[in-house]
Structures are given as C-alpha cells and as structure tokens.
C-alpha cells in the first residue's frame, strides 16, 4: 500500500504542554491556576485547557500579559478534574483564541466594567492593563456582583482596586453577618454611581441573564448599542471555528468573539438569555 | 387494487376523525394529534382540521407525543398504538382523563412500495384495546408471530452473538430508535448523562452494544412491539427482534404482556416473594 506525502502543517488540535506553577483558591468552587509567563495574549481571549483523560474546555484568561492565569469554576467533568490539579501537574493548553477586548477603542474613554460572578475573570486582565497605563484612559468604573460574600472572586484584587484610581462598587445577592456593603443584584449598583454615557464604553461579562439586565440598565442611562461590549459564552469543542457548537447566528464565539459589540448580536433574539 | 368498499371505509373514517377533532377543539382541547398528508400533525385551530387524513399509510405511532402536552388532547390511535398508550397511562406519563382517544381499527399499513409492513402481517391487535370512540370495521386478530425470535434462539450462542455484532456494526448511534419509542419517556436518558460516563458519544462496538442492550432491558416490560424503532432505523438493523425476544422472556417468566391491561402492574416495577429466578 502506498503512502501519500505528509501535509507539512501545524496541527491546531495538539495542545502545548504546560505545568501548573501556582494555585490560588478564590471560593469553594473556584480556583485560579498560574502558568509560565511564555504565552502572550490579549485581555479577553481564552484558551482551550486540557486535563488529559478528563477532556478539554474553554477557559477565559484572567490576567494581563505576560502572566498567564486561568480562573476555573468546577461545574462539570473537566472543570472538576481541573479543580483537583496540583502544582507541578502537566496540562495541555491551546491558544490564545478569540478576539479580546477592544482596547484600542477604549483609549481616552470613560470605562464602565460590569462583572457577575466568575464573569469578572476575563475582565480582570483588562482592569490590570488599564491600571498599568492609567493615564491613557478616562474615568474607570468597576461594578461587580456575586451571590454571597464567599462567592466573590479575586478578593485581593478587589481590595487593591478599592484603593486604586477607580470607582469600585461591589454587591452581593445575599449578605452574611459580616457584610457591610451593598446587597442586591449588580444592577442595583447603577443608581449609586455617577455613570453617564458621554464618551463612555461599557464592558460586561457574567451569566446570560445578568448581562441582559445590565444592558437594560445601561440603555436606561442612554448608552447606545455600540457603546456596549459583551463577552459571550457557549459550548466549544475546538476553539478554532470548526466543530460548529459555539455559533450565535452566523458568528462563532470562538473566532468572531467571545467579545462582541452589543450592536452585532442585538438583533438575534434569544441570544442574551 | 383497493376494493371500492375499502376506499369508502377509509373516507368515512377520515370524515369521522375530522368531526371529532372539530368538536374536541370547540370544547377547548389543546390539540388534536393526528395524521396529515406528511405524517404526524398537531391541529390546534378549527381552521386546520381539514388537514387531517386517514389512509393506509398512517404508520406512525402518535402516542410518543402525548407526554409533551399538559392540557386535554385528542389523539388518533390504531390497535398497535393503543397498546403503547396503555403503558403510558400505567406509568403515569399520560392522564386517562386528559386524552380523548379516537380509536381506528385497521387491517394493515402499506409502505412506500405498497407492501404491508411486516408487523401488520400477523397483527394480534388490529382494534384498539382502549378508546373513547372506535371507528372502522374490526378485522380478525391473528396470532403474534414469534418465528423470527424462535429462529434466532435456536442458533448456538456464538452465532447469535455474531448476528448481533454484524447488525450493530452498522449502528451510527443516531438514537432514532430511542427517540421514536413511546415507552422511552425518560426526560433525561442515562446514555446522554455524560457525568455518569455510562457511555460515550463515540461509536465503537462496546459503546453501541451498551446502548442497545441497556435500552432493551429498560423497556423490557413496556415494549408492545409497535415496530417504530425498526422502521426508524436508517441502517435497517432489525432491532425489533431484540425487543421481541425480551417481550417473550417477560411473558414466559412473569406471565405478563405489555399494553393489554390497565390494571396489571408491570413486573419490573413490582416485587413479590414468588418472583421467578431466571
């Protein structure tokens, strides 16, 4: 039997092997894993993370370059296997994939960042980047909400941001006996701020239903559709636009997103459910 | 050539179905599940009642769709379909008082090549066993044909297994057999439950057999041999043989036949001290 010559092309499905360097526990179900600083990415991009034997899942990069940090919530087979990883374990990483936040368009603007739950993860890298070149941007608002105080992620960063040149507002749906801050969903924070749409861009990430209501609040403040940017989430099996799973209309979240201008997806009903 | 009397009979039944559908909808029924020229149809509007048909190509077992409905529905059932309906009622998937059963006695359904389906040739229940209204002339029931199962049973074990190996090597795990089966009514099939890892999505012999054998045992005391599974299979795998074998075993072990008696408790969900040890 004759063999054909091999196509000399890079195999985009083969993960790069990387070792877990550090682990930080964020909440009972969420951990942040740090890897070698040899990656290179844009805030808002994601990777396909493999635990060999369990599977592969898309995970947002939660740091600004050159750091590579992945924050994972354990909900399924693979994410539970990730949660159980130890320092030194070998994983597979493919990427970075996706388009990242539109950082060029943010220069000189007032920035409103709204995160819900683990949705703060892809936004964290953006905040870090903005704070590291603060004078390139206008006012910075960070609105963040989680279910309970123990579900707040990046607690150290929240601490730092409360002292940074930014307006930080944090809320929980349900307080515990120690909580002194706002209680209510993240949209209840808007009346506490002086956010106006003039020269502003809002960037949102969180559960679908949270994003839907945040968009409503922003529009009630007269934000135009094209002043709102969202990071979407869908089932992904390849991350490179071939397996078909992550489509929103004609767009693939993995290659046309995950960051979309709200205007692009506003006319596809049911998409911000 | 169809006899004129048959043609008239079919036309009369069709008119009667439409009349019942109209009056049910007028009385507030949510939907009438029947047949139109393209197969199963769902009539929710009086204006659409005319779409309903009855002819000797109405093969589909419509009882599959009943658990999807909350309110009162009317449904057209043939004899074979009515057995599935009995099972659905017994297993609390359908409330008897929420369904108006338009029963049709039928003398066999023809496929595209105008031949009778295999299951119709030896039909043991040509008239529905449960109904609110019964249309059509009652044909004479025949003895159910187990000869294909008996033939397979007579072969030595290795030959039987290699028969099923060859058959299931064609399986593409489309799950049509499961999804069309009226008594496969679990809201979440264990095969789909990835977390449990009972089976994987990929296709290889152990995975395929796991699915088919598991399903056969799960529906063993509910299968009424309506044959929809085999009709749906795009690879023409004779899956009905497997289910008929289990039906035969259930009959021999427990003296029980699915679909006949609303009062009888299925053996797989009941226990008695003198249960047979197979």
């Amino acid at each position, binding site marked *: *039997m004759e063999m054909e*010559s091999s196509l000399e092309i890079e195999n*985009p499905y083969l993960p790069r092997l990387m070792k877990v360097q550090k682990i930080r526990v964020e909440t009972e179900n969420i951990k942040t894993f740090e890897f070698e600083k040899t990656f290179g990415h844009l805030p808002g991009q994601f990777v396909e993370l493999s635990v060999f034997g369990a599977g592969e899942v898309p995970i947002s990069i939660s740091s600004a370059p050159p750091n590579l940090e992945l924050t994972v919530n354990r909900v399924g087979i693979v994410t539970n296997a990730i949660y159980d990883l130890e320092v030194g374990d070998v994983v597979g990483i493919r990427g970075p994939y996706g388009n990242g936040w539109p950082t060029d368009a943010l220069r000189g603007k007032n920035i409103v960042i709204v995160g819900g739950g683990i949705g703060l993860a892809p936004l964290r890298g953006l905040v870090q980047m903005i704070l590291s070149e603060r004078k390139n941007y206008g006012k910075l608002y960070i609105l963040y909400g989680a279910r309970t105080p123990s579900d707040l992620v990046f607690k150290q960063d929240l601490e730092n941001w409360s002292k940074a040149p930014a307006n930080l507002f944090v809320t929980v749906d349900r307080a515990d006996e120690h909580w002194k801050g706002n209680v209510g969903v993240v949209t209840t924070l808007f009346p506490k701020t002086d956010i106006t749409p003039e020269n502003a861009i809002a960037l949102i990430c969180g559960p679908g239903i949270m994003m839907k209501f945040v968009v409503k609040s922003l529009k009630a403040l007269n934000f135009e559709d094209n002043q709102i940017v969202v990071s979407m989430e869908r089932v992904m099996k390849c991350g490179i636009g071939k397996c078909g799973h992550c*489509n929103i*209309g004609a767009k693939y979240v993995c290659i046309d997103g995950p960051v979309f201008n709200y205007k692009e997806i506003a006319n596809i009903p049911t998409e911000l459910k | 050539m169809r006899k004129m009397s048959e043609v008239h009979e079919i036309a009369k039944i069709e008119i009667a179905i439409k009349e019942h559908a109209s009056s049910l909808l007028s009385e507030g029924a949510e939907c009438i599940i029947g047949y139109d020229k393209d197969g*199963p149809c769902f009539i929710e509007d009086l204006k659409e009642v005319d779409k309903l048909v009855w002819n000797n190509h109405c093969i589909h077992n419509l009882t599959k769709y009943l658990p999807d409905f909350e309110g009162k529905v009317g449904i057209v059932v043939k004899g074979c379909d009515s057995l599935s309906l009995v099972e659905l009622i017994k297993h609390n998937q359908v409330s008897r008082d929420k369904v108006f059963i338009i029963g049709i006695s039928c003398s066999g359904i023809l496929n595209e090549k105008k031949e009778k389906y295999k299951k119709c040739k030896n039909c043991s229940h040509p008239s529905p066993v449960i109904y609110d209204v019964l249309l059509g002339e009652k044909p004479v029931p025949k003895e159910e044909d187990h000869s294909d199962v008996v033939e397979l049973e007579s072969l030595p074990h290795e030959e039987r297994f290699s028969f099923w190996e060859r058959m299931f090597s064609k399986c593409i795990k*489309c799950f*049509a057999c499961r999804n069309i089966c009226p008594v496969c009514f679990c809201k979440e099939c264990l095969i789909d439950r990835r977390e449990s890892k009972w089976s994987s999505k990929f296709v290889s012999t152990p995975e395929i057999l796991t699915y088919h054998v598991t399903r056969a045992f799960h529906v063993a005391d509910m299968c009424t041999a309506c044959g929809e599974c085999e*009709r749906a299979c795009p690879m023409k795998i004779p899956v009905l043989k497997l289910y008929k074998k289990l039906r035969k075993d259930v009959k021999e072990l427990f003296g029980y036949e699915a679909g006949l008696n609303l009062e009888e408790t299925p053996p797989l969900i009941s226990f008695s001290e003198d249960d047979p040890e197979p």
Partner: protein
Amino acid sequence: MTILKKQNVSKLLDELRREYKVFYPTRDEEGVISFSNVGDVVLDYSNSTVPPKDLFLPQTETTFEFEKGAEFKLRPKVHIVKRIVLGIRPCDVHSLILLDKVFSGDFLDPYYLQRRKNTSLIAINCTEPEKNCFCSFLETGPSLKEGADIVLTDLGDLYSVETLTEKGKELVDNKSRFFEEVSLEQEIARKRKAEITKTIDLKEIAERLEKSFESPYWDKVSKKCLNCAICTYLCPTCYCFDAVDESLDFKGQRIRCWDSCMFPSYSRMAGGINPRATKKDRLMQRVYHKFKYFDDRYGNFACVGCGRCVAACPVNLDITKIVSEVRGD
C-alpha cells in the same frame, strides 16, 4: 472518447487495490448501500445511505494519544495511506468542496485535509435520480464538472471516462490497459431513466429566514421532530464534531466524533444553561445554518440536494418544504 467497459470494473479495482485502499459502493443483506473496501462492488445504486463524508471525517477517530510518565508524550494520528473512492456521486463531491472550506481557513485541520490529499475521486454521474433528489436546484448535479479526478457516465454496457485533473489523467494513463479509446460518429445517447421531480424554492431565502425568526411557523413545523440525529448524520455537508478523552491509568487518547445540533445536549453548557433548549430552537438552527449562516460565512448553502434527510426522516420532515414555505409574515 475514453471508455471503461463495465465488465472490466472489477479487474480494474483488483489492480488498483495493489497500490491503493479502494472504496466503492457495496450492498448488505438488508439493502443498505455504503462505501466499503471489502465485498462486491455494486454499480446499480442511486446513492449510499451513509454519505462518503465518513471517509474524510470518520464518525469516530483518534486525534492524538497521550501517555503520562517521566516524560509526557503526545502522539498525533494522521492517516496517509493512498486511497481511491469509486462511485461517489456529484452531490457528494460537492459536499467535499464545501467541507474543504470548513477544515481550511485560518486553522488547517490535518486529519481531514491529509485524507483529502491522499484520496483520488472517481465520480459517477447520475442517470437515475431518486424521488427525493434535488441536486439541480443547488447546482451540484446530476452531472459533475469539477471536484473529482475522473468522472464516469453510464452509457449502458460501458462508462464514458472524463479526466478532470492531472491526477485523474495520470491514473487513466497508468492503468490504460483497462480503458479503451473509441471514436464515435454520433454520441451514444445517455440513458437518463428518470428526471429530478423534487423542488425547492430558494428565492430570497436569506431574507425570508431573517424575517421569520419569531414566526409561529417554527413552532408548528418542529412539533413532530424527534431530535434524533438521522438528518445530521446522513447529511454529506454536516460536520459538527465532539471531542472526548478516554483513558486508563496513564495512557489514553483524545477522540473526535460526530455530534448533532439536534441533540439537546449539543448546546447545553455545564451548569445546565441551554441557549437552544427547545425542539423549535434546534430545528431553526439546522435550517438557518444550512441556508443562511453557512452562506454568510462561506458563500454557499450547506446543502447539496442529495435528499437523504428527507428520505430517512422517520416523521417525514422535509427541509425542501420548510425552505420553500417559510415566509417572514
């Protein structure tokens, strides 16, 4: 004109088998036609039940093996055996042209593309379309102008042979003792036994689909769908795949397998949220993808008019009817 006598086909296949893995239509005891490399070749067939996309995007394939140890090993599995597919129909050839677009682009899929490189296609024009065929509306048949290396046309006892590529010409030249050159004063009339009878109205389909996203039409038409995978698995242009890991102790493999947008679990995210939770959502996704989204991205409908989905659907759902009927009102 170059011709191949039908009585020489088996001998040609035997000769080709010495150098290539050869796939051709076979018929099993139950009458199911599939492309196989064992068994008797069948030439009186309209089309295979499972499309030959299986030969390029197998239902199940290992993409790589892994082994944990002192040194972690990853071994990709790309197949490079030379192959020939004889008897592929024009519609299915066009489906491969469409799949090529998916598996190239910014990221090249070595598993699919290598198989394409390894494989020569000998297509056979259709002279007897089935009642569900509608290839002419999608301009993918019944005759083939491009996409295969050789195309044969049935002229009764023999095929006329046309080479469409250099590869095809080389193949005919190398095996010239099985072919003959004849000069005919008048072309033998092609035996077209039947015409295409099915129709599909594709006029302004993108606009009609866009306008009808909220239409109650979709509730009605999706009610009888069983959400099995027959239409997607038998479709030559469906390509969605899942990837899972299987392992025991320290060794394992990543496996890629067909997936179907008709399964509820297709779009269900871990945690339970499902953007396409209803039958209606899923049926809409299939129709919109085939006749709008794929066109938006790649410039072609993702349908070649083979009619397999229509023929095999157990509840007689017919995509040609849906596409023809859907209106924005």
